[in-house]
Each structure stands twice: as structure tokens, then as C-alpha cells.
């Protein structure tokens, strides 16, 4: 297991290096740099002043030079400074990541807590009203854009109850209840798609597993229906679901951008979006690298979880 884990981590390093180069080049391939943004609309600035600004922001070297400066800082934990506000990028990333992680974890929890039982119910009560309801619900969940749902929820609660989630970020350590009331609507909005996927995946795999010989054998031996479903079938049915959840972490972080903007949450997505509009290279690079890292890390966790759910996988 340890060597397996180390091997996976070793594979992750070149991936991250390739991603870092890709990110670095891609943000510079965007038309317009921060100098264009800073001077946009200013018709009186001379080239000398623009060059001065470039030097002030450390953008006057070659791409290779700039990449080396950046990546050598990153491996030492120094992500540089924001071009827009001169704040250390590591501070910006940490603050934003705290918000997004909470949002994503809450969304995954909602998606799993609702999606898995619904999938099981749908499979166990196949072709009944329960099954039909769950399947239709799943289709709706897949079809409804999260930003639309978020806006709708926000407008609905404001009109019906004269209530919107607290506007200023509240740490869960300061006030857990207020924090939950702040995150519940955004987490719900963002979780619906994942919830639908999880529900459909659980239903499909459960149907497959329930038809397996070992399930029939267990029933023939007189094991109760609940035990068969929860101990024998569900555990095996969860393997592909875990994979999906691993992938969904990346999707949720990406999708959080719009949701965070709508609810005014200063998370990774929102900050990244602002950085892209402002061509704030160090922030874009750090945030994107972090998202890539999270994605790789989540998939590593998924692989390790396979081993727990099915010990044959790690042995192979």
C-alpha cells in the first residue's frame, strides 16, 4: 500500500510540472496583459510610462526568466505577489481556499447524503413510483444550471421570507450556525448536479450488483433484505460512485466561480475570475495550480479508497 501510494505521488509530480508550464503559457497567450488593463481607457500614457509599469511589476524579463522566477518561488512556498494589490499570493490563496473547500465539502456531503439513498431506493424499488420520481428528479438535477438555481433560490428567499444568507463571510469556528446558514443555499445550488449523477450512478450499479450471484446466494442463505442491500450490494456499488465523487471535486471547484459570485463568497472561483479579468498572473497561476493539485490529490485519494473498498485492487 505504501509503495503504491508513493508511486502515485511520484506520477503526480511530472503532471504538476506540465500543468504549471501550461498554465504559465496559457495566461500569457490571453490577448492583453495587466499593463493593457491598467492603461485601458487612458489615452495619454506614453510608452515610457508603460515600460516603467512593466518593470515595476516584474514583467520585463523573458518568459523563461519569468517562469523560472515563479516556479523556483513556488517550490519554496513563495507564490509571489498579486499584480493588482501587491498582497502575498499565498495569503490570497489560503483565504479563498478556506471558503471554497467548505463550500465543496458541504456540497459533496449534500450530494452524497441525498444522492446515495435515493439511488438505492430507486434501484430497490425499481419501476415503482419511487423509482420514477427519483429518475425524473435526477434528470431535472442534471438539466438545471446551478447559477440559475442559485439566483432563483436567492430571489425566492428574499421575496418569500425577506431573507438572504449573511453577506459577510463568517468562519465556521466563529459561529457554526451562522456559517451554515451562509453556505447552505450556495452548497445546495452547486450540489444538485453532482447529486443527480451520484443518484443515477448508484441506481445503475445497484441494479447490476443486485443481480449478481453472491447477492442471490446471500438471500438464499436467509440473510435479511436490508443486510443484503447495505452490506453486500451497496459496498460494491460504491466503487464507481467514489470515482465520480473524485472527479466531481474538480468540477465543483470550477463551478463554484459563478456560485461564489452570486452569493458574494470570496472563494477560489470568484477570486480566480477576478484575477483573470485583471490579468493578475501570479494569482491565476497559483489558483490554477492549486485546483490542479486538488484534482490530482482527490484522484489519489479515490485510488486509495478503492483499495479500502476492494482490497484486490491494491494487491494487483
Amino acid at each position, binding site marked *: 500500500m505504501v509503495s503504491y501510494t508513493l508511486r502515485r505521488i511520484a506520477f503526480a509530480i511530472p503532471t504538476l510540472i506540465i500543468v504549471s508550464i501550461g498554465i504559465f503559457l496559457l495566461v500569457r497567450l*490571453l*490577448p*492583453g*496583459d495587466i*499593463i*493593457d*488593463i*491598467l*492603461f*485601458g*481607457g*487612458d*489615452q*495619454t*500614457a*506614453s*510608452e515610457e*510610462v*508603460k515600460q*516603467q*509599469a512593466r518593470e*515595476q511589476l516584474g514583467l520585463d524579463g523573458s518568459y523563461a526568466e519569468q517562469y523560472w522566477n515563479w516556479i523556483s518561488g513556488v517550490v519554496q512556498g513563495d507564490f509571489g505577489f*498579486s499584480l*493588482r*494589490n*501587491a*498582497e502575498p499570493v499565498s495569503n*490570497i490563496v489560503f*483565504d*479563498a481556499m478556506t471558503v471554497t473547500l467548505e463550500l465543496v465539502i458541504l456540497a459533496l456531503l449534500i450530494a452524497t447524503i441525498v444522492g446515495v439513498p435515493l439511488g438505492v431506493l430507486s434501484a430497490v424499488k425499481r419501476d415503482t413510483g419511487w423509482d420514477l420520481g427519483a429518475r425524473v428528479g435526477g434528470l431535472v438535477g442534471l438539466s438545471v444550471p446551478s447559477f440559475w438555481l442559485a*439566483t432563483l433560490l*436567492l*430571489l425566492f*428567499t*428574499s*421575496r418569500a*421570507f*425577506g*431573507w*438572504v444568507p*449573511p*453577506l*459577510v*463571510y463568517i468562519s465556521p469556528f466563529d459561529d457554526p450556525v451562522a456559517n451554515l446558514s451562509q453556505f447552505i443555499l450556495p452548497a445546495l445550488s452547486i450540489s444538485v448536479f453532482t447529486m443527480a449523477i451520484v443518484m443515477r450512478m448508484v441506481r445503475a450499479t445497484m441494479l447490476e450488483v443486485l443481480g449478481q450471484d453472491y447477492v442471490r446466494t446471500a438471500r438464499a442463505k436467509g440473510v435479511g433484505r436490508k443486510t443484503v442491500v447495505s452490506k453486500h450490494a451497496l459496498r460494491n456499488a460504491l466503487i464507481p460512485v467514489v470515482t465520480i465523487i473524485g472527479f466531481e471535486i474538480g468540477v465543483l471547484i470550477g463551478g463554484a466561480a459563478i456560485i461564489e*459570485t*452570486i*452569493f*458574494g463568497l*470570496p472563494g477560489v472561483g*470568484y*477570486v480566480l475570475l*477576478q484575477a483573470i*479579468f*485583471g*490579468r493578475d498572473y501570479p494569482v491565476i497561476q497559483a489558483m490554477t495550480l492549486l485546483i490542479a493539485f486538488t484534482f490530482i490529490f482527490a484522484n489519489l485519494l479515490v485510488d486509495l479508497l478503492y483499495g479500502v473498498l476492494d482490497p484486490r485492487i491494491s494487491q494487483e
Partner: protein
Amino acid sequence: MSDESSGGSAGGEIDRRELLKKAGAVGAGAVAASALTGTAKAATKRPRATPIKRGGRIVWGLESDPAHVAPFGGILTANHWAKEFAYDSLVEWDRNLNVRPALAEKYEILNKTQIRWTLKKGVRFHNGKELTAADVKYSVERMLNPPLPGSISTVAQVPAIDRVQVVSKYVFILHLKQPDARVIGFFAWQRYAPIVPEGLYDQINVARNAIGTGPYRMLGYEPNDRVEYVKFARHWKTGFPYMDSMQLKILGDEQARVAALRAGAIDGATLSVEVARSLANNRDLTVLKGPNAAFRELQMTIKRGEDKPWHKKAVRLAVNHAINRADIIRRVYSGEAEYSGHVPPGYGPWPLSDKELREKYEKFDLPLARKLMRDAGHARGFSVTMTTFALQDYPLISAVVQSQLKAINIDVQIVAQEAGTFAANNGRGTFDWDLTGRGMRGDVDGYVAEFHPAAPVFNIWYPEYRNPKAWRGIGNGRIQLDPAKRVPIYKAAQRELMLDPVQVPLVAIKKYQVVRKRVKNMYVAFSDFNTGLRNVWLDR
């Protein structure tokens, strides 16, 4: 829908007449009290005699994050939205853009390149320190060379200030490199000219905090989240401000601002025309509107080595007269916009009159436009790519212009771009036509300077453009320090620019802000800032 905010000036303010008395006539003559003299069209209702209530807290929804709140070198409008309550400058604009004394008691023109300023005595910064001429010297030096996180790009907005000579604790002389009439407007605008205590950058993290003389003391700025203020009880305007505290909450999504307004989570915000109008019947809300410095225009390039149809003056004039601005106002802005020349309506006495624009310079006249195209040898028209922003009203106004220009056989291809891409192409002159917008300027010169060959951008955008009469006016206007003499100079220059347009002004749009009923004395500032919030009180 109406502007229900009660107007009126705050206690302790000095009106323009008093300022005129105070500004003595010395040397080359006194600079009249106002760089933007005259009454803007913005909210001119008489003050309502409602007793002001003190105390309370207001939460205002900001459309975007300021990135930082550093006093100097802030390029984003949102930077000033976030910091404007913490700082004052030497002079200020009232709601009608009249210049009034602020931290300076008076100023005198000693000669064409020297202005002597006398500061008010007893003005305190938020840290308790008294304002002196040394603070002004420190501040002006940073206006001329903004440290990080500011950008030196804002230096281009600073007039030709050479240095500050401290004469005594409260008196200093502002030395100019050359005569420059933009000085007073620059300070009144305040955007790039706040006065801070000497050594500020060594005392606090200016990206997150502020020390100024403004009516509210900043408690801090949380990036992408909020700015917190509390009342500064020792503000130089006695009895001012009225509220105890203020929070500026960053809410980028318009529907989120609407929901927060409905729920009472915020007390006011800027909204788009249609959204603001949809709230007009809400009994808890008041919809305010007012003219705004933003106007839309069609820019063209006239570059060396190219031979594009619009290089001919007749074609540019044809485009100008083929555009039906009344139709744009009706279709794009539901009637909530005005004709605009190169200087937007509402900008003091400087813009050309609406009548002049409608009936002459921007008259919709298709037969004339067709004749001009024929005379230029382009009766069959041509194709052109027009770039614009992929946001707000720009795609819509572009589509209307596109349909209107079909009448003179111009086939406009619209390319909508993200703001950064658009800015890059615009700044480098890599476009044929751009449909773009303009904003507030500290002085009228800011609206026309780019048409003069001395402007760096002139050689990027239209090096082949020739308009000596307009050039003369723009050049003379900048060095003429007497506003009364400047007005006809700039009007004449604008007329020359309209007779040979290289940028075709379209329309000036109105700005909408929605506040809860309890918010009193708020107004929509022409400058695009939220200056009205300084005077707000809450009817609790």
C-alpha cells in the same frame, strides 16, 4: 420613478460665492472658484426641510472588488468607490460639480506656474495628527510617483505638477512645469489626489487600510468581501457625517444585489436600467437616477500606410449623420439616455447644447449621409469590423448601429470581446472601429486631449488625422487658467471635432441607484462615484 433623495449641503460647507470672496485676485488673476462652473443637469431639486437624524449603519452593495484601497495609483473605479470616504483633497465638487474648498481654505494664482494654497487650520487625520503643508508635499510626491500597490499608469492623469514648496505650517506653493488649467479639477475630482499624513506608507498596509481626513475612518478592507467604516467624529465639517458606520459589501452579481435589497440586507446599490425600473413599485425602495459621465462612442483609426474608406472626412461625416441617436436611446436605453458630444451632457458648462447636437452636429440625416458617401466614391458602401465589449449594453448598441449603417451600405461586422482583450487591442490601435465608452475626467481637457498630436495615443490611433483648428483650441485651452475664457475655446474645439469627427460620440446614459426608503439625502453622482453616501442619513 423619481429622485426622492432630499438634497442640500452639509453643515459647515462653504458655498461658491464665499469661495470666490476668499480666493484673492493675485498675479495673473484668480482662478475662478470652479473648474466646472455652471449647474449640471444632475438633481437640482431644492432641499427639503426634513430634520436630519443621526446615527445608524448603512450597508451599500458594490459591483466589484477594488483590488486594494491604496490612496495613490488606483486604476479601477472600484478602488475609489472603496476609499472615497476615508480621504479628502484640497478642494471638492458639490453634487452639481461646482468646486468648493475642502482641506484648503483658499488658493491664489501667483503666476502661470505657481499657485499658493492655504490650508484650513485644525484639520485632523484619523490618527489624530493635524494636517500640515508637509503632508500635502508628501501626498503630491506620491501622486507623481505612486508606490505599489498603486500603478504609475495613473501619472498620465496628473497635471503638470513639478513640486510642492512648503512655505509655512499651513501654506505651500504648488509649482507647475508649465501652465496647466487641469490642476483644480484634478484635486476636486479627488480620485488620484487624496491628502494623506506624511509617512503613511511606512505606518500601515495601504492596500488594506487607510488614514485620511475623510468623514469616515476605515476599519479595514477584506479583499473580495467588504470595506468597513466608522464615523470620524473629528471631521473638519462640524457635525458631519451623520451615520455611525458604513459597510461596503462587494456583490458582483446584480441579482444578488436585488435579493439583498429586497431582504433589507443592504441599503442601496447601483443597478442596470431595466432591473432598477422593475423595482420602481416596491414600497420599501426608492429608485434614483441621474446623468453620468459615461457616454458611448464610435472610434475609428486612421493609420499611415492604410487606405480605408473612412480615412475620408466625408465618409466619417456620413457615418455620423446616418446614426439615429434618438432610435438608439429608445431601443437600447428605453428613453433613458441623451445625445452626447465629445464632452458628455451634465459636465458643467462645457458640453455643446442638446439642441445644437440634435439639430446640427448629430442630426440624423440619411439623404445627407448618402450624398456624402456618393461624394466620397463609396455609394456602394464597404465592410468594416467593429469591436466592442462583450458586456453591459455594448452588444445591443452595436447591433443597432450595425442596422442603421446598412442604410448607407456599410456592412458592419461586430466582434464582441472580453474587457482585457478589448483594452489590449484598443491601446495598441489594432482595430478599425471600436464601439466603446468613456468615463469621468477631472477637467474638460481629458475629453479632447487625445485629438491633439501631442497625445501619445494620437500617433497610435489616427496619425493621419488633421484638424488644426481643433488642435489650436485644445492647446490654448489647457494653458488658459481663466475658466470663463476656457469655455468658448473648448466649445469651439468641440464644434471643429464634430465637423470632422474621428470619434463619433453617440449617447450619454443615465445611472440608476436603488436605495431603501430609510436612506435620505442620497443622489446619483455624475462622477460615477458614490459621493452621495457622504451626506446620507437614515430615517430610522
